[in-house]
């Protein structure tokens, strides 16, 4: 028998989370420009509304009002399909990320996560890999030299770094023994020597560095933004795109950034965990218990998740204005000759340390 209230709750949650991601994407574009401006000692967009806060709305209206141009020589069907294939997987990946523990409401347990799939992290890999089809199809369908090169580079870069990302995640799976992201986050609340929480960054420092670098490459961000290197490839795979189709590519890229930040936070920084916070309140060893209401705990956990994700989003922008872009041979060399051997080394070290009961 179907529990209609549960279905209703998850429907509402899906819509709310989707809208929240879109809003974050919108404000991330503003944040990117404002923070870039701050780092270059400029002001940035500050005219539309207070502090330029309505700039994303203005951008959105402009995107919708612009003429949509499809090149005569392009493959029409694939050209239209490509942006859709980019944005939907980008959004869909977020479905397994837990943004809080359980919320007890009127005797009902609500997972603060859209889907607690048993394949968890594998789902992320599967869906995120589908996003690359959008980019390579878009690059090919445009019938433009820059687009094709951008699409090819993107595919090549994506598959090179996906292996090192997988190897880094295997280290995490060995320690936490579960594919479910919620279990991984939950396990990170347990304590080491009864004092230090077992966050991923502490048990997997090498894995964290590999994962971080790979994620930057996967999201096509500086210093790995070769698919859209504007100084050599004009716009890369989206050179020919305009209007809403371009906006979908753009939103897909930012949505990927959000998911990437959420994954870094969940795998290596405890996700929604606050150190020593449990469902009944703070339990501090050798000190005592500070009791709290369960709804308050849930709110604090969600806030903790949002702050961590926010920090990594800022980190993405920070890196953009700190590091120069790689050359393509350097990029493949880093992926294949540095990160993959390091990833395998990390697995062996992690295995030995687990067997010696150190982590």
């Amino acid at each position, binding site marked *: 028998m179907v529990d209609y209230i549960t279905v209703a709750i998850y429907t509402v949650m899906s819509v709310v989370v989707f809208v929240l991601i879109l809003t974050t994407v919108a404000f991330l574009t503003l944040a990117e420009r404002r923070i870039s401006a701050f780092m270059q000692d400029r002001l940035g967009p500050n005219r539309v509304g207070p502090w330029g806060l309505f700039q994303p709305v203005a951008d959105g209206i402009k995107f919708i009002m612009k*003429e*949509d141009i499809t090149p005569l020589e392009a493959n029409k069907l694939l050209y239209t399909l490509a942006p859709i294939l980019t944005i939907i997987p980008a959004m869909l990946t977020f479905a*397994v990320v837990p943004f809080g523990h359980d919320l007890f409401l009127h005797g009902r347990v609500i997972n603060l996560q859209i889907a607690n799939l*048993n394949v968890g992290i594998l789902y992320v890999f599967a869906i995120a890999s589908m996003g690359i089809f959008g980019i390579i199809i878009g690059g090919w369908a445009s019938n433009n030299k820059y687009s094709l090169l951008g699409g*090819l580079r993107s595919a090549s870069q994506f598959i090179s770094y996906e292996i090192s990302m*997988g190897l880094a995640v295997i280290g995490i799976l060995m320690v936490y023994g579960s594919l479910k992201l919620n279990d991984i986050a939950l396990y990170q609340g347990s304590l080491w020597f009864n004092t230090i929480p077992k966050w991923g960054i502490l048990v997997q420092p090498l894995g964290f560095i590999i994962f971080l670098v790979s994620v930057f490459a996967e999201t096509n961000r500086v210093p790995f933004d070769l698919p859209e290197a504007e100084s050599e490839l004009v716009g890369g795979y989206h050179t020919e795109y305009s*209007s809403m189709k371009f906006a979908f590519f753009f939103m897909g890229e930012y949505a990927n950034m959000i998911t990437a930040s959420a994954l870094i936070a969940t795998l290596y920084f405890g996700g929604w965990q606050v150190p020593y916070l449990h469902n009944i309140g703070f339990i501090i060893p050798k000190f005592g218990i500070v009791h709290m209401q369960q709804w308050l705990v849930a709110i604090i956990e969600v806030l903790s998740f949002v702050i961590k994700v926010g920090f990594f989003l800022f980190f993405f922008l920070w890196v953009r204005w700190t590091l120069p872009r790689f050359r393509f041979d350097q990029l493949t060399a880093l992926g294949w*000759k540095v990160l993959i051997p390091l990833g395998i080394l990390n697995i062996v070290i992690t295995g*030995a340390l687990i*067997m010696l009961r150190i982590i």
Partner: protein
Amino acid sequence: MMIDFSSVFMFLAVGVIFVAVTMLLARLIRPADPNVVKMSNYECGEDPIGSGWFTFNVRFYIIALIFVIFDVEAVFLFPWALVFKSIGWIAFWDMLVFIVILLVGFAYVWNMGDLDWIKDLDNLKENEEDTVISGTMPNTTSGQVH
């Protein structure tokens, strides 16, 4: 279990509806005034030369082939990592053997230069030097051909 996957489909549905509504809305609002010049491919303002679908570097293909091998290897590692703690040392040594065999293949690929984007960079440089030398010393000794 089923409720989990159904909420993924719910999320997918929300996504598809969002995309469909936005594209439809944009189609109703935006102007449509195409002409041949506007719809030509962009090539820095010039008329495009030839097709955009040019032959590309075969390296992209080789990288894709190596990727398939390593991705299959990662697939083997995932289930092993999950049960690693409960099996213990035997799992550790087993996987070590697997990884060593894999590393032999990796070393072979590396040694063959398939991981280098520009193959034989040294040879390329030597050839370039030859051309430069032959270019700077024209016909000083007769009969010597570079």
